[in-house]
């Protein structure tokens, strides 16, 4: 067949040889032609843009490296050279202060441990391929803050006796409520009458003691009113009743709730023991903290406290209960409507006025309360975005399975919603991290604050000190924020795969 010449004439039987693409469309030249010089206008723009970039880059390099002063003991080194650039000896001399503030020299290992442990835990948490996420999260959200608290302040807190009683009271009261909730209220009440009666009397006595002053007796190294003591005793008895009753049950859900509760209670007791224990660490007051340490403490505390608060507020805003929803909306909108600086002023000026007479907050703690409430409002909106993205079907399916509200949220909705908003949370953290600089306005020395304050050190006053200091501050903030924003992008892409439809 093939030998017979076709009547139509010549037909090509094999592919023509592949020609290389025209030289002006491939390789560096082609790339430049399409991306840089595709039209006269574009060529002009390219040249202008490139010269602009080179001009800026050269300016920075010239100032920082070529004209920069690298060695010296004090300002003389930087003042002596005419038309000098960056004053680096100032940075070398002050760098420790930029990181630790006035934290005592011989105690700085404590800060270092916190930095290192935090970095390692965070890095392993951030890498999606590594296992034990749950435990890591638990460590980061519970153990780590506790550890840093004890390490940085020195622990050995002097809890007043009333605080201890208060916490004990809450614990005992919860011992009644939690197992009750695990069974459903009606069933729980029917089967747990003695405990309930005891607890009811206890609460009544406690309530009465608020309004009627009772005689006090010495106990536990302090004074305690008879009413408090009585209600504590009653609550203990109630707790025994209810625990004893629950322990014998075979209901798996109830048992696990009970187990979780026992775990939580022991954790709380452990926390109390830890913060009050004397580890032989020197007490370091927060006034001595400064620099990067304060920046990180404010940002991390802000976000860790804002997360649970924000979730609660977001749930509240979507709640069907009018009062709860109204409260959440007002709370969120008020905090989001005012600038952080007024919140910080409010925290530093008005918070002491809100407290009962004599009760007093540490300055740093006040700023922390302010930032935590502020970022909780923003976090709530982020989380709300995630909640709204969960299809209605998920809620309906959960309800159809007979799950209660909290179980539906805990088991079905929140795990999905929080996963979606991870990039949002990271972004919230970035803006909080940048916003921590505002605490300098209320007189705390964060990274920017301590750099700003160092300008007035007579030992280092020179025309370039300010610029160099700001340059270092900008660089440090930029590195942190840029890294985090890249991470957020990475997570966004990674998480996006789960929701995008691939193929059919």
């Amino acid at each position, binding site marked *: 067949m093939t030998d017979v010449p076709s009547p139509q004439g010549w037909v090509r039987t094999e592919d023509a040889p592949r020609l290389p693409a025209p030289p002006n469309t491939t390789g560096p030249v082609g790339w430049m032609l399409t991306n840089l010089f595709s039209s006269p206008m574009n060529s002009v*723009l*390219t040249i202008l843009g490139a010269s602009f970039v080179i001009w800026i880059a050269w300016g920075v390099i010239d100032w920082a490296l070529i004209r920069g002063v690298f060695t010296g003991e004090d300002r003389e080194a930087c003042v002596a050279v005419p038309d000098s650039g960056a004053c680096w000896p100032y940075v070398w001399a002050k760098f420790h202060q930029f990181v630790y503030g006035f934290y005592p020299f011989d105690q700085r290992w404590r800060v270092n441990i916190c930095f290192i442990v935090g970095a390692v835990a965070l890095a392993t948490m951030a890498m999606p391929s590594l296992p034990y996420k749950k435990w890591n999260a638990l460590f980061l959200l519970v153990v780590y803050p506790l550890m840093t608290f004890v390490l940085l302040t020195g622990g050995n807190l002097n809890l007043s006796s009333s605080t201890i009683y208060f916490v004990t009271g809450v614990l005992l009261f919860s011992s009644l409520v939690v197992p009750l909730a695990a069974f*459903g209220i009606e069933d729980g009440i029917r089967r747990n009458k003695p405990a309930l009666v005891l607890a009811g009397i206890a609460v009544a006595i406690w309530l009465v003691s608020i309004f009627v002053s009772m005689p006090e007796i010495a106990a536990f190294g302090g004074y305690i009113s008879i009413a408090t003591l009585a209600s504590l005793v009653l609550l203990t008895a109630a707790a025994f009743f209810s625990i004893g009753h629950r322990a014998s049950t075979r209901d798996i859900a109830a048992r696990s709730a009970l187990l979780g509760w026992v775990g939580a209670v022991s954790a709380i007791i452990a926390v109390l023991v830890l913060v009050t224990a004397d580890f032989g660490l020197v007490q370091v007051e927060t006034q001595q903290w400064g620099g990067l340490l304060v920046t990180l403490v404010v940002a991390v505390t802000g976000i860790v406290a804002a997360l649970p608060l924000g979730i609660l507020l977001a749930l509240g805003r979507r709640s069907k209960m009018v009062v709860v929803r109204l409260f959440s909306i007002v709370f969120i909108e008020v905090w989001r409507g005012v600038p952080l600086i007024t919140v910080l002023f409010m925290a530093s000026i008005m918070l002491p006025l809100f407290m009962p007479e004599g009760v007093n907050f540490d300055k740093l703690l006040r700023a922390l309360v302010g930032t935590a409430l502020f970022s909780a409002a923003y976090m709530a909106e982020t989380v709300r975005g995630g909640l709204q993205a969960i299809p209605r079907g998920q809620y309906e399916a959960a309800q159809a399975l007979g799950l209660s509200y909290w179980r539906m949220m805990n088991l079905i909705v929140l795990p999905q919603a929080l996963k979606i908003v991870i990039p949002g949370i990271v972004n919230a953290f970035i803006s909080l991290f940048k916003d921590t*600089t505002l605490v300098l*306005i209320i007189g705390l020395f964060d990274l*920017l604050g301590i750099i700003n304050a160092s300008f007035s050190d007579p030992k280092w006053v020179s025309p370039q000190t300010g610029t160099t200091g700001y340059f270092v501050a900008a660089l440090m903030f930029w590195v942190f924020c840029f890294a985090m924003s890249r991470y957020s992008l990475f997570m966004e892409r990674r998480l996006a795969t789960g929701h995008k439809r691939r193929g059919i």
Partner: protein
Amino acid sequence: MTAVIDEARPQRVSLFNDPKVRSLAAQIIFALLVIWLGYEIYHNTSANLAKLNKSVSFGFLWTTAGFDIIQRPIEYTRDSTYFRAILVGFLNTLIVAGVGIFLATIIGFIIGIMRLSSNWVIAKIATGYVELIRNIPLLLQIFFWYAAVLKPLPGPKESVNFFDLAFLSNRGLVTLKFIWGEGSGYIGIAFIVGVVGAFVVGHWAKRRQELTGEQFHSFWAGLGLIIGLPLLTFLMLGGPVTFEYPVFKGFNFVGGFTILPELIALVLALSIYTASFIAEIVRAGIMAVSHGQTEAAHSLGLRSQPTLRLVVIPQALRVIIPPLTSQYLNLTKNSSLAVAIAYPDLVAMGGVVNNQSGRAVEVVLIWMFIYLSLSLVTSAFMNWYNARVRLVER
């Protein structure tokens, strides 16, 4: 049917399991808690204030302030009241926010469009801008610009002279001051008439196009009305304006109109910072309009300019406007950082008033009230706009 079900159910539904009762109980408990907390705060505050011989009252606003302010949009001297001082601060906030929003929008749109440029260098410059500016704290940038405005500029004696019309020094930009003479009010009226006229013409042109298909260049006509009418009035009145020239005398320029270095630094920092966010919004907005829209417009015979104006931009704006408004609000709130560089905005003036009068609670309440009102107005606008541009599905 229903009767059968009713019989099948237990007659008595326990109160504890009635969702309505439970929800009501939870709400009552919650409300009581909130009320108790509020009462506790109120009680403590008044007790603490009573201890200091103080009480919350706004009467102090009418006493003499006794300090001076560097930038006064309205008349203010040391003999004015605290109220006026706060009002001056509020107006200064509006000034910085207004100018900042204007500049931030322009820069933001330019950078956003640059990011989408086919030119690699231009796109990368825009990306670099966004990544650099977004990741550095605003306060640091304000400090930077303040130093950058103050340091390289000469003192007032050696100021940079722009044809004797404006002088740039580290005391700011001093320029001509317009002093409007008699009859200037008419120019304002003419301007308002022009704006109204432009609206009317626009409406008329739209209706005519819908009815007859004929087009009318309402944009140019409107612009002509807005600029032309006041200009005409101005000329007819014989140019009732005189200029006050700044003159260097003693330490500083006397007379003229001064733009403070603090204002320049603050506006620069705020608009450059906010522009990096606006750029991202603009980029996302334009990318959100699918290419099919452009192709459809082309296939209908629209050329590229009307395509952009009539098809792409209106759809992009729908995506852009809501986050843009919240950026405007952010800029306004961020202008409170003025306190760090001595620009007398609302927060700074409130701080001074608090220091001089010791009225912390009142001042914080005033701050909250004003900023919350601004937010509410903005979100009201946003809701209105969203309702207006909502896709009407058929």
